[in-house]
């Protein structure tokens, strides 16, 4: 994972609430054994018509959305499954951050481990973003802020350790492995064994 410090982009907006992981990437695309190429399957049943052509009404297919790296979504984005394919598909497609009023726990964890920035904002800021698709926003990971075009800045919550890992592109397995002695000690001294 490479470090993420700043994200500047116009937004693409999916206003629907509770966009679940099955909509982000349907289960039939999970038979892969690699992490590559998942972007092709992103929002597949929403992006394409039954005949395989682009669905012109889906916001990602709007020519204006091309190159946008920030997705603004309705409340409770990413609910459902633990499939890490969901944030990986968003990243592979080109997204770097998701803005919503709530982001589901497992999706959030998976996003952070892959360098996709989960940005939870207040309802007022969210409303403005939903109403202004294509707005240019600036996300500063260090300050944990998102700046709107008029200069208004909103802070978003992010765990200090997760932020550090995002900024530096840290592999958390490496961090965990620094504790191997403590883990062995725990195994040897616990009062019962599983």
């Amino acid at each position: 994972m490479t470090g993420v410090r700043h994200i500047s982009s116009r937004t693409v907006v999916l206003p629907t609430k509770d966009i679940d992981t099955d909509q982000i990437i349907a289960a039939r695309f999970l038979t892969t054994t690699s992490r590559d190429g998942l972007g092709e399957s992103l929002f597949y049943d929403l992006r394409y018509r039954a005949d395989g052509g682009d669905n012109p009404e889906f916001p990602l297919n709007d020519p204006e959305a091309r190159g946008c790296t920030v997705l603004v979504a309705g409340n409770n984005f990413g609910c459902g499954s633990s499939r890490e394919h969901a944030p990986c598909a968003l990243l592979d497609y080109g997204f770097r951050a998701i803005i919503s009023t709530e982001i589901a726990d497992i999706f959030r964890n998976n996003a952070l481990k892959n360098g996709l920035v989960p940005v939870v904002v207040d309802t007022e800021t969210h409303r403005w973003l939903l109403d202004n698709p294509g707005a240019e926003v600036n996300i500063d990971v260090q300050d944990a802020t998102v700046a709107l075009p008029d200069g208004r800045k909103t802070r978003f919550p992010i765990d200090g350790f997760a932020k550090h890992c995002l900024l530096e592109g840290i592999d958390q397995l490496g961090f965990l492995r620094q504790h191997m002695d403590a883990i062995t000690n725990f195994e040897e001294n616990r009062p019962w064994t599983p």
Partner: protein
Amino acid sequence: MSASTLFEKVWSDHVVVAETADTPAVLYIDLHIIHEVTTPQAFSVLREQELPVRRPDLTLPTMDHSTPTTPVSSFKDLAVVGDDAANQIRQMEINCDEFGLDLIGFGNAHRGIVHVIGPELGATQPGKTIVCGDSHSSTHGAFGALAFGIGTTEVGHVLATQCLLQRRPKTLSIDVGGTMPEGVSAKDLILAIIGKIGVDGGTGHVIEYRGEAISSLDMESRMTVCNMSIEAGARAGMIAPDDTTFEYLHGRPRSPQGADWDTAVERWRGLRSDNDAQFDQTVTLDASTLQPMVTFGTNPGMVIGVNDPVPDGGDDTSFRKALDYMRIESGKPMTENAVDVVFIGSCTNGRLSDIEEAARVLQGRKVADGVRMLVVPGSQQVKNEAEAKGLDRIILEAGAEWREAGCSMCIGMNGDTVPQGKLSVSTSNRNFEGRQGVGARTVLASPATAAASAVQGRVSDPRIFS
């Protein structure tokens, strides 16, 4: 010592390195269940970094998600759907072989859905931390374990270190008083809970289900309740272990044996929230007012009593979009909708008692013309037990299909799918758009409601057959 919740007791018992303002806790994992879909990329990381699996003895591998459930006389005849799924299954066998893991594969009498076989084997026990690359890992919380779903990166962390980096979640008490009326099951209860708190009502929290209505549930019903905790957004769901739990576990292959059993039970009896323990949030519910529940929209929170009119979402565009997808009208009960497919199975309702519940409705009756009904046991053991009781005969004579064990139509990635536009009454856990197949319209319900709907050819109140 200050009063603790059940969750806090299990959590603190597994902290290897305490959390600080700057770093999460290192949490020890007692049981890691793995399957073919969410592990291949994790094994690739181990291979790249030349790391072994730290505790093969605490790792339980099986195959369930992309495996076919078509009836076969020999597992050599299994027709896996698509080259990718076949490759994924093959890769799981290679990974387990290379890393020294004892795979519960095809032909093994214990193979089945991850969340069905853990309890069945007695590997799921009170006070354990249990994870799996599957969000319905919350199922194991029915035993007073702390169990939650993880992504593939974290699967790699557990394989390599037997630990996870975790921030301590908040606690939510859901207190269910009263007695459940006749004809109402655990599935109806959990659907009603999700309807009450919403699909994000549990976000950031571990739920503890408590109260008279919970402690009177049998283990399989408790598993159904905990299974769907994630559908309320919760990290996990737990129920304090009691005699019902111990009785279920006694004598199972991986349960403690002999003197170890008595020691374990003594320890397990301490696993309950202290009387004055504080929860971050509390919700109460009266079980005596419950009725059979069905979903009408595209998430499990869009749920009503089977005879109640579908609500009007006002100017909520997400609500309208869901009803348009489902082709459901506000103001009318769900019983007005004809059914094309009925699915009994999954980690939510694929256990023996679920199949018995469906068979009670099917006995001496026929699945309505034009309805396809699949009954899919959650494990090979459930299949064998059901067949020993003759349930397969009842199911087949009613005109339903009796399948091999697996996730089947819950997830639509193994060949079992609901056709485009068709309405399915399903005992699974998710009615998301496309979950059971492209354009599939899913109504979540209990096994009794699903079976009654199959017989009637439309969404039905199961109490008409009681």
